[in-house]
């Protein structure tokens, strides 16, 4: 065979020159710039909350009763709000997490590609977009008007917000469990319920728990659904099932428009508390994901 003696052109692997290169570089710079644009407010907010909140926050601040708004910043604390947030969020989680996991089990293990399962899956996606204030008005209409304000009404509102989030995250995790695991247990004669509870759920538990924790973190910071359900009082009310209650976000909202520096100071302290709770939940969720997730995308 005659060797080709033409000059070796080969592919030109160099970066194109001129306007095409400039355009490409400008695009890359703009992409990096958009990330920088997002970091600036985030750093700004976190810095302000930490700088203004760190001097306020202390064990005494987290446990003391809520003083009148005129009180100086070093007086009193947000004890009743901390208690309320823990109680209300815990009850909401106790309702929403099991129901959400069961709902996702229906979608993934029973419903399959059926019309009903697709409908439920679609509308649980849609439900994640329902504004939190609408959940508050909903619980006001069906609960508060009949049974009065209570921490439990707030917990129901938060549970409604969490339910679709838990369904979605659990559904994603169940989809990742390989089918041979299920088939293996069916081959041993196990019923569907047994396969789901003893094989599928344990295989996906890491992702399910971390998804639930992220939903709890979201719910703990919500204010709007609580406005119309627990009614923000300042006195501690350990009874979640009756009487008006309070929570950390509600106290921040009440203090944010206050002209008194003391009240504003307590709002910053409460904001730092709230962000710290959310971050701790998020870090624990990440840890669980990293440590206990067997199947991931």
């Amino acid at each position: 065979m005659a060797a080709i003696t033409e000059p070796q052109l080969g592919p030109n692997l160099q970066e194109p020159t001129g306007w095409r290169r400039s355009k490409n570089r400008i695009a890359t710079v703009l992409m990096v710039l958009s990330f920088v644009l997002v970091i600036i407010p985030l750093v700004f907010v976190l810095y302000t909350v930490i700088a203004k909140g760190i001097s306020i926050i202390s064990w005494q601040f987290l446990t003391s009763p809520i003083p009148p708004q005129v009180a100086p910043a070093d007086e009193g604390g947000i004890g009743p709000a901390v208690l309320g947030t823990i109680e209300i969020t815990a009850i909401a989680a106790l309702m929403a997490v099991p129901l959400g996991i069961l709902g996702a089990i229906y979608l993934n293990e029973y419903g399959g590609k059926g019309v009903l399962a697709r409908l439920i899956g679609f509308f649980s996606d849609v439900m994640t977009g329902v504004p939190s204030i609408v959940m508050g008005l909903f619980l006001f209409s069906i609960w508060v008007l009949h049974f009065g304000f209570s921490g439990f009404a707030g917990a129901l509102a938060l549970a409604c917000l969490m339910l679709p989030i838990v369904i979605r995250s659990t559904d994603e995790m169940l989809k990742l469990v390989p089918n041979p695991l299920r088939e293996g247990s069916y081959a041993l004669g196990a019923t569907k319920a047994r396969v789901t509870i003893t094989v599928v759920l344990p295989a996906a538990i890491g992702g399910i728990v971390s998804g639930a924790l992220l939903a709890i973190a979201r719910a703990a910071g919500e204010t709007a659904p609580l406005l119309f359900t627990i009614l923000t009082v300042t006195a501690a009310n350990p009874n979640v099932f009756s009487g008006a209650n309070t929570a950390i976000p509600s106290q921040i909202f009440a203090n944010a428009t206050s002209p008194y520096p003391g009240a504003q100071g307590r709002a910053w302290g409460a904001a730092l508390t709230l962000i710290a709770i959310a971050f701790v939940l998020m870090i624990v969720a990440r840890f669980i994901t990293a440590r206990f997730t067997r199947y991931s995308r």
Partner: protein
Amino acid sequence: MSTVTQQAGPAVPAGPARPLSERRPLGDRTFQIIALASGLLVLVILVLIAVSTTQQSSSWFTTEGWGIFGKTWNPAANQFGALAFIYGTAITSVIALVMAVPVSVGIALLLTEVVPYRWARPIVYVIDLLAVVPSVVWGLWGILVFAPWIQHIYSDIGSAVKGVPVLGALFGPPTSGPSFFTAGIILAFMITPIITSLSREVIATVPAIDKEGAYALGATRMEMITGAVWPHSKGGITGAVLLGLGRAMGETIAAALVIGSSAQITSHLFAPGYNMPAVIANQFGEATGEFRAALIGLGVLLFAFTIIINVIARAIVGRSAEQGTA
């Protein structure tokens, strides 16, 4: 007789096997029913929201009729026209989208097409942090730190464009720290994470072969994005933007704190205004009777708007995701 002996002796497998559904133990069927009920709960709650809130606000809808879209909101005179709040919701959402969409799509492209995987994870963490900051904390920061700071910029811009046509009408005085524009900026921060993560999911479904093909033809990265990524993912990104719009419309507490709480319809973006969720949050405490019905009615409108937007958006996102995997 023979059938009885067959059933009595389980050790002798005689006759045709019974269908699976008859053999399933009670516990197994109970579990399925509980799971189904939990799934149905989603539909039940959505229907209950619509029915109960409509019921509580029916007097507003029936007495006002089309007057619900009236311009005057004066609780003292029993006038409840919601136009100013609908206008405020539209304006703040548009401002938020104009700022958040390019940034979010930029970050999504950065994550999927530019940076290597080990850099992408920390960037995703940072975006997640943004989503974790609660609404009320954005509001607190917005009203005590951000609004007083940006007020000076507004008044500088305002005096510079005063009298200039169009610009003067949009950015001219009166200016105020808490305003439509401030609320729009804060909302933009809050909806950036969701638009980013959904756009990223959509862009990640672009087939590698399309992108490699574009590169093989000598395209730069920018040309690959416009030629291969964009045609494939524009539908999904539209869906992501609509979901962001839904969030921006319903976001309450941050807007309630920084929007300025003034029910007016004006072209001045730096002027104080009001939107639907903010007026519900701020005025509900003192409302009774017709006033309360009107505020719950605003919630019904908000629910209807966001449901419509979310249904359209999810349908678009779902369809483009199916195309990606097919």
